[in-house]
């Protein structure tokens, strides 16, 4: 049994708004149960407005009204003891940040302060949590930058003097310099060019392996997940609909949404016509009854419109929330033999 770093049990996070006398409730994260293990990359995939960003905001305990935790629990199991960020005192949660729990954000240009040198940003974020004397601190920062293939000279540069790929590497360095046990990465490579994207992903993977930390990696791009994630969780309309080891999930999906997501990706050398999924993601203020995917689902039956399917094991380490998961067939064959995992 591998150890967990984070266990989440039936977590519900809703946006509650009351404008002009009308109460609106947006169920962005509804009844999510998952765990993230030590030393793994857990990928979260889903379309925009599927609730994936809200989910990681609750992971980072960075929620502000109107977002509210409505139910469920969330516990981190760090080396220095278990902690539930929503029950613990604020000072204790703040002490976790950066040294145990850190965040690689999307859009590195807006993250780094444009009028401060990179050196100052490192000082602001990392100096206090590391608790080292100044010379030792800068030694650690410089050796960490070198690990990410950055020269220590970037410390005296302003953000606009660096290229997009370098800035993204600086934010990765910033998030990992304190060797945190848990890193959340929110679409860190979406804005990058293809060549740079691969470099940055390889770097995240290397740093994660060297430090033995856990990474929650969020992106809507399944081909990125295929390359970096150990396990993938698929979000649809606020719910986790399928979870499994990367290879199994891609080669033998057990939820119709995942099957479509995988089959709709174009590949070089593949000339078969691709079918895009009809319809659009549901409005989370008024989600459909029963399974939220049923209006777009080719397998939907009467039961799907009324009963919510539970997320149940369908194989080794593999869970799916579908009443007809046994009948889901992969819509595309993914290359080589070793991927043909027995369902």
């Amino acid at each position: 049994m591998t150890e967990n770093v984070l266990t989440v049990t039936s977590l519900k996070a809703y946006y509650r708004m009351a404008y002009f006398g009308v109460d609106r409730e947006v169920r962005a994260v509804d009844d999510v149960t998952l765990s993230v293990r030590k030393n793994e990359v857990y990928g979260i995939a889903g379309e925009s407005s599927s609730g994936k960003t809200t989910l990681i905001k609750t992971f980072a305990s960075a929620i502000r009204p109107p977002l509210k935790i409505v139910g469920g629990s969330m516990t981190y199991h760090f080396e220095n003891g278990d902690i539930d960020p929503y029950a613990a005192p604020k000072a204790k949660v703040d002490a976790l940040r950066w040294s145990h729990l850190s965040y690689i954000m999307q859009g590195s240009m807006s993250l780094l302060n444009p009028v401060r040198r990179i050196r100052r940003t490192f000082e602001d974020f990392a100096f206090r949590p590391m608790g080292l004397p100044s010379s030792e601190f800068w030694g650690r920062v410089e050796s960490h930058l070198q690990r990410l293939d950055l020269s220590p000279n970037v410390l005296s540069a302003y953000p606009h003097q660096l290229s997009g790929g370098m800035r993204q590497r600086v934010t990765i360095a910033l998030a990992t310099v304190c060797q945190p046990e848990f890193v959340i990465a929110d679409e860190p490579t979406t804005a990058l060019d293809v060549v740079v994207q691969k470099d940055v992903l390889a770097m995240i993977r290397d740093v994660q392996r060297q430090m033995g930390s856990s990474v929650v990696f969020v992106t809507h791009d399944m081909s990125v997940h295929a390359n970096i994630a150990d396990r993938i969780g698929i979000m649809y309309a606020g719910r986790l609909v399928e979870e499994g080891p990367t290879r199994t999930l891609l080669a033998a999906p057990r939820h119709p949404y995942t099957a479509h997501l995988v089959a709709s990706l174009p590949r070089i050398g593949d000339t078969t016509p691709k079918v895009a999924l009809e319809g659009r993601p549901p409005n989370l203020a008024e989600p459909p009854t029963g399974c939220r995917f049923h209006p777009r689902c080719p397998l939907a039956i009467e039961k799907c419109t009324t009963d919510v399917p539970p997320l149940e094991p369908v194989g080794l380490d593999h869970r799916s929330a579908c009443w007809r998961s046994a009948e889901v067939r992969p819509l595309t064959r993914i290359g080589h033999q070793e991927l043909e995992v027995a369902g």
Partner: protein
Amino acid sequence: MTALLEVSHVSKHFVTGGRLSRSHIDAVVDANLSLSSDASEIFTIIGESGSGKTTLARMILGLEHPTSGDIRFEGKRNAERRTRAARRDFYRRVQPIFQNPFETFNPLKRVDRYLHASARTLFGARTASEAESVIDGALHKVGLSLREVAGRYAHELSGGQLQRVAIARALIPNPSLLIADEPVSMVDASLRMSIVTLLRDLRDEFGVSVIYITHDLATAYYISDRLVIMQKGYVVEMGPARPILDAPEHPYSRLLKDSVLSITDAGTDGLVSADRSESAAAWERVGTATLQEREDGRFVRL
């Protein structure tokens, strides 16, 4: 063959900075391409940021003037279109689609207002009912209808729908050429295919040629007829799309293809930085290299 668009020996040179910090950028160097008006096609321009692909598109649209060389659309240069009416006629034939649909539309105005404006000025609709039927026809081509869009603001539509509306707006004057600058890079991966398939259907059903600008090789493979690959302003490989992407010859094209992530890589642990040395070496020689023709019809700068 009558030429729809002819780009011959086009270069664009930018000068930035003041007297002390002047720097020169060759955004596009000696680009040649042509589209025929007999058969519609999807012509893809591939390159990283800074490769000059957007500059080339802006020059074709007449938003930028080439430093040297000639761009002729239906036999006429942009500089020859001196009157307002001539320029409007040009935009009836060539229409742009931009990258981010949320920035294309003003968030404070209703989406259909743009459609009405295009129907009036570009199509020349005289009455509201005429404009509406034109708009409805254009929206039907992209799988929407005026009923779904009328009165809605940009934030009420999803990114994929909004990009369809942007394409519908471009289709109102029945253009023969669409210039789509990264139309899917801001759209979710799951919706991407519906947009690129739409571009392909426009080519097949309505005979619209598309210049598709992207850095995504997989969608380019899926829909393009021909493509060019650009490295920092230079066209390094040009020709039929699928043969080139199946077996790229220029080192830079190979680097791009090696960097493409695919779902078939799952579990192969193939996540290593691509080797840049050959591409960098080819870049050193780019000034003296010439485009050479190959048997399958491609041109490679070696």
